[in-house]
């Protein structure tokens, strides 16, 4: 029986290292999105890489950058379709809010084709999303003043300003005070030492 090994590189036009990098990049993105099923993730990654190679052939840009752009674009279009459908049903969601709602569900793992914009969401998915949807219910912000402090230091202000003015008028006194403190300090030491 003859055995022959087929090439393990499914993208013969591109070197293995290049396709590897691109594959891992897209795989990481889909895994980050929540597509945990490895085989399903592999299918979508392969699809995206294959489509990216067409663009790579025409533009010569790095394959991983093209593939990542394509992946992000598919995710964005999937989120756009979902937000439109949900807007029809209830209320406007931003992409961020939708992502946070998606995170609570298993939809990216169970229905990646919906999140990647290939299939329209069915009633069940929309209903599940609306059930899970919760805004961060911030109580209405009514900005108000904390008021001004009712504590005053009139006595100290008067004392400090008068003292400062006095020393300003008679600067020699300030110097005398300083040297007087030094003399007092050594006098105390002298008293204890004698």
């Amino acid at each position, binding site marked *: 029986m003859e055995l022959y090994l087929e090439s393990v590189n499914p993208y013969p036009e591109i070197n293995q290292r290049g396709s590897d*990098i691109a594959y*891992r*990049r897209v795989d*990481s*993105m889909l*895994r*980050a*999105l*929540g597509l945990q099923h490895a085989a399903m993730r592999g299918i979508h990654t392969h699809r995206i890489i294959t489509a990216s190679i067409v663009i790579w052939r025409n533009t010569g*840009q*790095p394959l*991983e*950058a093209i593939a*990542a*752009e394509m*992946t*992000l674009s598919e*995710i964005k279009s999937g989120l756009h379709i979902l937000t439109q459908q949900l807007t029809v049903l209830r209320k406007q969601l931003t*992409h*961020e*809010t939708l*992502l*946070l709602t*998606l*995170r*609570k569900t298993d939809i990216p793992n169970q229905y990646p084709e919906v999140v990647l914009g290939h299939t329209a969401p069915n009633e069940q998915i929309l209903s599940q999303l609306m059930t899970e949807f*919760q*805004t*961060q*219910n*911030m*109580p*209405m*912000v*009514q*900005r*108000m*003043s*904390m*008021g*001004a*402090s*009712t*504590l*005053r*230091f009139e*006595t*100290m*202000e008067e004392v*400090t300003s008068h003292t400062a003015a006095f020393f300003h008028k008679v600067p020699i006194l300030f110097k005398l005070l300083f040297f007087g403190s030094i003399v007092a300090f050594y006098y*105390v030491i002298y*008293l*204890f*030492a*004698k």
Partner: protein
Amino acid sequence: MSLRQNYRSKAIRQRIFFFGLCGILEAFSVLLFADWLQRTGMTTAKWTLLGVYSILSLGLVFGFAQSFFGFICLIRGRDSLRITRQLSLKSQQVPDALESRVALLFPIYNEDPIRFFNGIASVYRSLEATGLLAHFDFFILSDSTDPNRWIEEEKQWLEYTHRLNAKGRLIYRHRVSNINQKSGNVSDFCRRWGSQYDYMICFDADSLMSAECILKLVQLMDQDAGLGIVQTMPGLFGAETLFARLQQFANRIHGDMSGAGLNYWQQGEGNYWGHNAIIRLKPFIESCALPELPGPRPLGGRVLSHDFVEAALMRKAGYEVWLAYDIGDSFEELPPTLLDFLARDRRWCQGNLQHGWIALFGSIPLMNRIHMLNGIYAYLSAPLWLAFLLISTLAAYSWERSGLSLIIRDSWLPFSPASLQNHGLVILALTLGMIFLPKIFTLFRLVLDKAFRAQFGGGRRAMISVCLEVVAFSLLAPVFMLFHSAFVISILTGNKVKWTTQNRSNRAYTTWAQAAQAHLGQSLIGILWATLCWMIDPTLFFWMSPLYVGWLLAIPASVIFSHSEGAEWLHERGYLITPEIVMPPEIIQSLMDYQAEESPEPRPIEALREDFGLIQVALDPYLNALHLEFLPRRKNQKQQTTHSLKAISQRLIEQGAPALSTQEKDRILNDPYTVRALYQEIWTRPESELHPWWRLAISRYSRRSIYVSDHNYEKAYR
């Protein structure tokens, strides 16, 4: 304003007893001391000693009187003027309904998010079980500056919101700039949401309060519109190191007496300790804005210890501030080691010394002035004691060198002992009595109250534990004295303190190197002092021994007390037992259960650990979205700012996160445009243009692989 006007005459009578006793004891001890001094002739040194002793004995007298009256209240079993009794708070009953809305505030500043949220979850579940959760909203007020902590907080907020099914009841807010630290954090809440709630309850990052405790506080506030603040008496829990366990034991066994004594004289003019208290929001917002203190920092400028000032302002506005010392189930953790404790004390020292401005020159009620002076005394007494002991020793040295004979005069006072030596012993006995009699009161309580001693492991063991605690803290007292003296001097000479995150973890112990660095100076002082005393007189050497022995043993004590083996050894033999150990309250048990849960995610690999928060925001679509949801939308950003952020962002991508400073990472994380663009940029960059650090992050990124620790690689890929 209060409905309970009839309590005032009783309160005045109690204050007369209290301050009367203080006055009598102070006069007695100062006269006795003055008499003793004059018997061998007054000198400048002795006048100084008399002046210092007068101040120091005032503090001792005050503390003793507080313990004495607290002991009387507890032994009699009826303190009719405590606030819970006045308002007939039913001890066991949970109310069927509430009228008010309460905000529970959980400020956080770079603390462990997991422990923090576990605490919140415990409180949440506790309130949920009462069926009254609808009246409460939980506000997580973050001032965290560490990007990792910040992002982890957001992530944990999301996780716990789902887990608790909090449905908009758990609100997270991160401040861009942490002006005024904790007080500014709370003020920000008051500005944004304060008008929508009747009361707020402030927690610390390590605080716990059960639903029953919270509901009792709310009931008190509902029943009397004249109450501004009701402070609980937090018990310490969670201690694992020997130092922390000793503290916890001392707090729990003496705490009731201390609280009852404090309440005895302060009544409705009490104090606020910054957490584990309920506050009426309207007067707080209207009247409790903090003043800017005159003069330069560290004593001037913004108020560091805001709680005392807020209590004074609340009183000034005409509301009462009470200590509900008998409401249990209010807890907090404590620093695990001596050095951590002292680091916290350094901050508190500055805050308390700042109160000098207000205590001396601000127009506040008299009782609040006394609270502030008490707080100042707690730290100022250290250099005064040091000065007292130093002057005494130097005076004795000076006398010995003089070679003069001692001529003893008659005493002025009829009750002074004839012998000079006995006279000195009486003064010493009086001083030591005031310090240690409160411990004797506790021993009496253990003898008289069966239920009380059962909580602490039984009578004999509890008594031995009290003795152990007394010996341990007598050993550490000279260490505290020197450190506090250094704090006071450094603050008065203009050295500021930064608000740093407190170590609340029991896992960090003090190494010998750290202990030597911290305490070597003290040990040297101990050697010098001991030598001087020996040269003067062996008797003086003996009398001063508690002082320098503490300094000489500071290094080993600091290390040994920071470990948990000693605490475990004592615990196994039934010593240093507290009620929380004998029968953990539900709220603590709930926290322990949460803490015991295995984390679903192992630690990130070391190369990515330090900037893990940033990695998650850059690579994870959900955490990127979450972070963006929290950031305010900025309009009309200056071109200069945009360019600056772009430059930092470029450096981040080209050189990796380790190349950026914490401030630069903070700037990026605070800008929604940069955060959104970063996610797009990192993923779509060609491999050759990415820094190896980012290549590593991307290649390892997944919800599992990024967390793979070096030891758990196989487990993650099972």
